[in-house]
């Protein structure tokens, strides 16, 4: 009996020791992974794309009931607000008709001016529409996974947009799913311009819903409501993509409300503008050679062929 008790306590001690050893070993492994993640991002990126490819079908299936429930809730809400919505639309329609008249005038004027300048129109952008299947955001990162990958023509660095404006860019591309880094992410940086004053700045994510404008010139005249659009600097995105508008200045920091409603992103458009930007240089693509598709930016540069 004593021998049995002794062997049991020995087994318990051995198990405790093994658990402690395993804990230390795994903590060291986690530290090692942090170092590897810092040193070799390509390996980490490949591992991540492999995993998101694997889980994409599951996440797609799991996210469908959520999308259906959201649609049903939206429809009920729309029915409740039908009268108000109708009044708003009538008013909006009148405003749009006025804009249509102005637009037609500008269109004909623009055509005449282009003709005078022998202007080459921008190459048409190609796009893929992809459903959002996972929100992999946390307290420190803001990203989404969409169900479209290399097999659908998605390329790293493409702009991710909704009907309202820019949302982010494609960070990692798997075979059938891709990860989009949102503009609100801590590491997101997009060259932008204040449409009214033409002051250039960088839109920097801060993990909140309102990214900041940085590197603006001193004594700049910024007001709440100023439209922010992409500047095209860096060549990642074309100039003029709507991003958001200034909502206010707090402690000298200028915050922007994005046009895209981050809480309502069911589908994203991943747009290929075929720009020879710095992201392509990251991928090792020789951007000095001419592309098969004419670059819109190159067409605008003075002296460009």
């Amino acid at each position, binding site marked *: 009996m004593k021998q049995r008790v002794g062997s049991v306590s020995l087994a318990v001690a051995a198990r405790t020791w093994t*658990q402690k050893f*395993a804990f230390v070993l795994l903590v060291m492994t*986690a530290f090692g*992974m942090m170092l590897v993640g810092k040193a070799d991002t390509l390996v980490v990126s490949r591992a991540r794309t492999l995993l998101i490819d694997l889980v994409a079908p599951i996440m797609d299936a799991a996210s469908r009931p959520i999308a259906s429930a959201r649609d049903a809730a939206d429809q009920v809400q729309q029915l409740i607000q039908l009268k108000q919505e109708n009044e708003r639309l009538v008013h909006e329609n009148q405003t749009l008709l006025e804009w249509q008249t102005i637009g037609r005038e500008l269109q004909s004027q623009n055509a005449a001016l282009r003709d005078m300048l022998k202007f080459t129109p921008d190459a048409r952008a190609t796009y893929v529409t992809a459903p959002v299947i996972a929100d992999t955001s*946390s307290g*420190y990162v803001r990203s989404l996974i969409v169900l479209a990958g290399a097999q659908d023509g998605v390329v790293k660095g493409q702009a991710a947009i909704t009907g309202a404006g820019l949302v982010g860019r494609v960070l990692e591309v798997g075979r059938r799913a891709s990860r989009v*880094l949102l503009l609100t992410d801590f590491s997101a940086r997009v060259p932008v311009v204040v449409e009214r004053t033409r002051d250039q700045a960088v839109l920097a994510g801060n*993990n*909140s819903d309102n990214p900041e404008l940085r590197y603006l010139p001193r004594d700049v005249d910024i007001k709440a409501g100023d439209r922010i659009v992409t500047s095209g600097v860096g060549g990642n995105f074309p100039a003029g993509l709507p991003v958001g508008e200034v909502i206010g200045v707090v402690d000298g920091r200028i915050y922007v409300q994005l046009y895209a409603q981050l809480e309502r*992103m069911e589908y994203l458009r991943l747009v290929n503008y075929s720009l020879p930007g710095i992201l392509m240089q990251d991928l090792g693509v020789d951007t000095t050679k001419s592309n098969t598709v004419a670059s819109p930016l190159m067409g605008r540069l003075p002296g460009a062929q």
Partner: protein
Amino acid sequence: MALRPTVGQQFDLTLRRSIPVALAILMLFLGILPWNTHTLGPLNANLVLIPIYYWTLHRPRLMSVWSVAALGLVGDLLGVAPLGVNMMTLLIGYRVAVSQRKLFAGAPFLMVWAGYMLMSAVADFAQWVLVSALQAQIVDPRPAILLYMIGAVGYPLCAYCFALIQRRSLVRVF
């Protein structure tokens, strides 16, 4: 003479033993579904800490340190935070839960809940320190505090569900 379990019984036992880890995986994936809660902040509030804490207290053998590390690795690869941070966070949380096990196992629910909040606070603080160190700047802790609060509020509901599952499927499984 003790009867040897049949293959079916062994399979059933294996399935039952995998319930805690399966629930943790489920929580991990639930946390990244597109709930569109951006006005509240992302829902991925380290929800996986809840099953880790609960099962470490109630069925410690079914939530091993290896499972916790694997969950952390999957979380790391699914997100874009620096690799290893999630794994380290969950391991720290697990270690705190293990150290509290004798104190909280069988204690009144409010005390167990307070234990979860303590463990989650330690893990989330460690995560904030690690992310700040790896990004070489002090990152804003407010979104993480919000997520911590979501986790703390969500614990009772999850614990209730886990207790039901424990009573139905894991009464004699250790």
